[in-house]
């Protein structure tokens, strides 16, 4: 069975619900402490939270831990690597994705539901969505303001939009370049996203829009 590692750094706090969401999507997942090995897994999810309490810069210290080298190797083999929120911050800090996540334009933590437009449906995480589909998920971060000097270096996967899919300034919760909410590497197998798909994976939590991210990832590995 397809098995994912959900990496737990000191301060990671969305690990349990991310494992839950992968299970709901039909996959198998285990929490893996950052000192252990992830070599035997089919893919890796770096979940949200506050690794090292976000001291210095969000994700900066986790990105320099040894396990990131193993993740880099798995990524080079083409396995799917997903970073959610703090996971996205860690991936950029580790140089696995280009760009940087800076403090929000209003420098506060912001927890709210947003609309996202799925703009790239050719990644292992998004091929179950329709191109241009508008979905709802919550964000919860203080440093989600994506910056990149040259946007052609990444594949833009999710953009903050209004409910009709227009990419407006009002719909941008944190000031990110081009309303970017999630990006992938050119190969498409590394995705980083600020919104929390695992928090939108159950009817009672307000939406199941996020489940397709995990379903896609699980199915993609399986086939």
């Amino acid at each position, binding site marked *: 069975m397809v098995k994912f590692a959900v990496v737990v750094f000191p301060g990671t706090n969305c690990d349990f619900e991310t494992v839950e*969401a992968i299970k709901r999507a039909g996959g198998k997942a285990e929490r893996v402490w950052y000192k252990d090995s992830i070599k035997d897994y089919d893919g890796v999810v770096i979940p949200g939270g506050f690794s090292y309490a976000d001291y210095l810069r969000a994700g900066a210290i986790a990105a320099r831990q040894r396990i990131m080298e193993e993740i880099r190797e798995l990524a080079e083999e083409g396995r799917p690597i997903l970073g959610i929120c703090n996971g996205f911050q860690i991936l950029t800090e580790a140089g696995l994705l280009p760009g940087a996540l800076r403090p929000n334009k209003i420098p506060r933590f912001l927890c709210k539901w947003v609309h996202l437009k799925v703009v790239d449906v050719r990644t292992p995480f998004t091929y179950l969505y329709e191109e241009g589909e508008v979905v709802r998920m919550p964000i919860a971060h203080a440093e989600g303001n994506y910056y990149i000097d040259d946007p052609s270096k990444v594949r833009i996967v999710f953009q903050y939009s209004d409910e009709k899919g227009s990419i407006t300034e009002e719909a941008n919760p944190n000031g990110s370049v081009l309303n970017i909410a999630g990006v992938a590497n050119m190969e498409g197998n590394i995705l980083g996203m600020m919104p929390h798909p695992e928090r939108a994976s159950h009817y009672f939590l307000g939406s199941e829009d996020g489940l397709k991210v995990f379903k896609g990832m699980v199915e993609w590995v399986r086939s």
Partner: protein
Amino acid sequence: MFPHEEKLIREKLGREPNDLEKAMLEVMWSEHVSYKSSRKWLKLLPTKNEHVILGPGEDAGIIKFDDKTWIVIGIESHNHPSAVEPYGGAATGVGGIVRDILCMGARPIALLDPIRFGPLEKEKNRYLFEYVVKGIADYGNRIGVPTVGGETEFDESLDNYTLVNVACIGIMRPEHLVHSYVTEPGLKLVIVGNRTGRDGIHGVTFASEELGENAEEEDRSAVQIPDPFTEKLLIEATLEAVYTGKVKALKDLGGGGLTCAASEMVGKRGFGAIIYADKVPLREPGMTPLEVMISESQERMLFAIKPEDVEELGKIFEKYELEWSVVGEVIEEPKFIVYWKGRKVAELPIELLTNVPTIEWPMKEYRIEEDVETPQISLEEAFEKVWRSPNVISKRWVWEQYDHEVQGRTVIKPGFDSAVLKINEEYGLAITADGNPTHCYLNPYHGAMGVVVEVVRNLVSVGAKPLALVDNLNFASPERPEVYWSFVETIKGLADAAKAFGLAYVSGNVSFYNEVVNKPVKPTPVVAGVGKVKLEKIPRGPREGDLIGLIGE
């Protein structure tokens, strides 16, 4: 301590206590730790019914949700520390109540933060408001416990001051219950977490006095710097340790520090302890045994463990990169003995520390309710006034700074009458917290009842059946006869209202001496309640065409 208490101690001890002993007695006999002015009256509260597994008396209360699931709940105030250092005070308040839940063996799953301030027109009050919220946000968010509800109120009487209450909810399996007291001698006492520094020395005595004019400069040692990073590791390490079944007793180090945690842990069932104070990992050079014994450094836990299991549990603490150290042991003899570098530096009968006599202050009734004329203003004007009030407008600015979604349970988010957490695929837990100082000031008895009734209404309005309550009593100095009277009236009101609904209080907190420069705060009981709701049955907002009805008087 009052002179008559010092005298009593001298008599019981048959000698003058030395400086260290005096300092330990002082924290244990402080209002904050001993509940000496309130204990007698708290007995009036109903504390038992079919839902209650564990009522007041330990670090938090426990109720039964279903056969496999218990819910743990506690509430705590951090008023004084927040008034002098709003960011750190509020944050460490969150840390304290979270550890209280943790030490029963439960995973903390939600926070509520009823917070109160003076009018926002004043710079100082805005500063307090902004930084209290930031403190709660930074701490709660970093430890991954969602703040799903609370209250935010502004009142004249709180000018330059703040009431910061925090309630925490935990979830556990019955087999993981750990008590806060030991039932056998020979156990090792192990301290885990942050190093001990000079911060928070005399914190509890500080919390048992009114704030003076120059509080800032004077009370430096009473504030602590929050360390949510260590707290998060403590949560995971503690739960992993608890799941081994080898933790015999567990307490967090809060007010009164190691003295309080250790003496209460061993004294409850008549045992004693030897503490090797020099074995406590220290942050600063040159600390004295006195400082070590009463420091209130945050993010520390005290474990009682069988000697043969110490190494195994130590490995768990090390996995989470936490420092730990064996600092003492449980002994048969009911004595509290402290060693420092091989020398005995204190020896007290345990009950002298844990059995503090109650105090009853004089009471004086007041009556300030009177008829007032309804102001003659237009409906528009009235509407405008009400909707502009900071007490009525949406508190979105507050709860958007809180990660209210983390852990993936939040079904009903902030902004409604109660929050609802998903407990399993079928049922949820509704939680809410309410207070109403204006009403309580006018008539403490009716006001207190009103608070309970509001909690019940808020639970019912999301479709939940109320299960249990906790109360946090924020009052001015009990030495003021009117205040003490209002305190007792409040308890009677809380008791009568709860009885009327068949509800019990499973935990609570009393905070006295809430005054700045001789200005007492209004009687402010805050009640939090939890209820059980079938997820499918939660009313999901009105639709166009629905009829609106009004029930009741």
